[in-house]
């Protein structure tokens, strides 16, 4: 026997309409999109590993990692594959960039989070993020056509047109917005009550910033440094344009050097033959670079988890 009530309940019975079908398809579609990027990444890592392994069939690993001469693009038996000069070039630029970017980035973050009025912050924060989006080739030409001549005209008259110094300064400038923005995020998530307590004891603004807020946000701040440094290690255009193409084991910033990334660009855009040792060396250097930036990123994650403040 059908009652009015049970007729009404029919409305809730499952029906196959385009809406339910669509709902069933959507998650699968999204999964495919996610898989594409995961698979691409895996593919890249796989190629990297395979070609690197082939490279080490020809050049012993120890020779690669301890060799002090890199002349991969020379002809025939003059080729040497010691990666240390490329590593030192990378580290030289990275260290210089960190020296520029850490103090300035942190100062900018302190200004934004502790000193700037709301209105100023609301303008400056987006500007910083736009700066972070300038193509690095622009920074590269800035280094080559402005910073290097400036340095040569003032403090370093003997310096060549290609040098690690101007590249590291400009890589530093490039990562300032990133460090400032991430550090500012960390600092503004320090609760207001903690600042108030410090002010109520007679702290000046600077004391509140340096003795309370920065220590309280330290994990986030250090993570921003590490991520910035990781960016510097992987930076390519600026060093390719401004730092030179002479792999050299040196710690003199006024020298012309070559970084790992700049070598990869040079090799890949030159006419080396497919399958040659020089060709495979691109992958070996890429792998080395990958290991470096991976370590930095893991370090950043570790720091922000391990030292996360509970307020």
């Amino acid at each position: 026997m059908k009652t009015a009530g049970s007729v009404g309940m029919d409305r809730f019975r499952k029906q196959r309409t385009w809406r339910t079908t669509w709902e069933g398809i959507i998650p699968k579609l999204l999964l495919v999109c996610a898989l594409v990027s995961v698979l691409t990444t895996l593919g890249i890592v796989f190629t990297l590993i395979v070609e690197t392994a082939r490279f080490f069939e020809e050049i012993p690993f120890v020779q690669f990692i301890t060799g002090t001469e890199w002349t991969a693009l020379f002809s025939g038996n003059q080729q040497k594959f010691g990666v240390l000069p490329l590593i030192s070039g990378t580290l030289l630029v990275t260290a210089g960039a960190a020296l520029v970017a850490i103090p300035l980035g942190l100062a900018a973050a302190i200004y934004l989070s502790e000193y700037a009025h709301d209105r100023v912050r609301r303008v400056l924060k987006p500007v910083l993020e736009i700066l972070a989006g300038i193509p690095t080739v622009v920074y590269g030409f800035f280094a080559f056509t402005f910073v290097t001549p400036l340095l040569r005209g003032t403090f370093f008259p003997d310096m060549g047109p290609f040098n690690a110094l101007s590249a590291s300064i400009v890589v530093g400038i490039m990562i300032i917005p990133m460090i400032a923005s991430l550090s500012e995020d960390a600092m503004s998530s320090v609760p207001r009550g903690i600042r108030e307590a410090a002010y109520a004891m007679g702290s000046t603004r600077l004391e509140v910033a340096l003795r309370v807020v920065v220590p309280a946000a330290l994990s986030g701040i250090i993570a921003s440094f590490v991520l910035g440094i990781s960016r510097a290690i992987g930076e390519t255009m600026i060093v390719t344009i401004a730092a030179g193409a002479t792999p050299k084991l040196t710690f003199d910033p006024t020298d012309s050097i070559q970084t790992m990334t700049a070598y990869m660009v040079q090799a890949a855009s030159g006419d080396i033959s497919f399958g040659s040792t020089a060709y495979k060396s691109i992958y070996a250097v890429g792998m080395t670079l990958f290991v470096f930036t991976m370590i930095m990123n893991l370090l950043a994650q570790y720091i922000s988890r391990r030292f996360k403040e509970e307020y």
Partner: protein
Amino acid sequence: MAEQAVQTKPAIRVENLDLYYGEKQALYNVSMDVAENSVTALIGPSGCGKSTFLRTLNRMNDLIPGVRIEGNIELYGKNIYDRDIDVEMLRKEVGMVFQAPNPFPKSIYDNVAYGPRIHGITSKKKLDEIVEKSLRQAALWDEVKDRLKDRATGLSGGQQQRLCIARALAVEPEIVLMDEPTSALDPISTSKIEELVQELKEKYTIVIVTHNMQQAARVSDKTAFFLNGELIEYDDTNTLFSNPGNKKTEDYITGRFG
């Protein structure tokens, strides 16, 4: 009692105080004297201006953009809104404890030593002394003396609040302002802090905001009743609760509104 109050010079004298948040007026013509070594309770429904008033006494309102003030506030005869006032030194003399415990994410020791350090004390021995003394004053020493290096954020809420009191006392203020210091705490921690307030009165002048009338009655010598930014009635706590002079006060303490 009334005569005594006339004889001792007030620690705090507020005259015709108006305060505006931008266009909005939050305090209307408030005048009151607070005697030295006394506990004064500020009561009233929420939003009536108790915190605002309290924060004029150590100029914490300066940190809020757009706050404007008219009238006079004197501490020990000195107008604290004068041009030649060093706000940092003023806040050193007028300590503050907040509604929610707000220890720094540092060790227990470093929390208490923070104030003395920024005011120039560097000697380890002196700092040790201050830390112990302040923690004893805040009745926390016995509970934490073996773990001074531990993080303050690992303490219980009640312990954190007593730590905040110790931290405020460590810079040796004359006046201690407390803004609903027990509203986030359990009853046992609350009564510990109430006892503490009684003890601290020996050395400090205390102004305490509370929305709990029993608490006001238990801990204070004088009580001020605020309503809509006005000071409605200010009298000895016993008198105010047993024989209020104003109809509005009576309505509030008998629970007819608020």
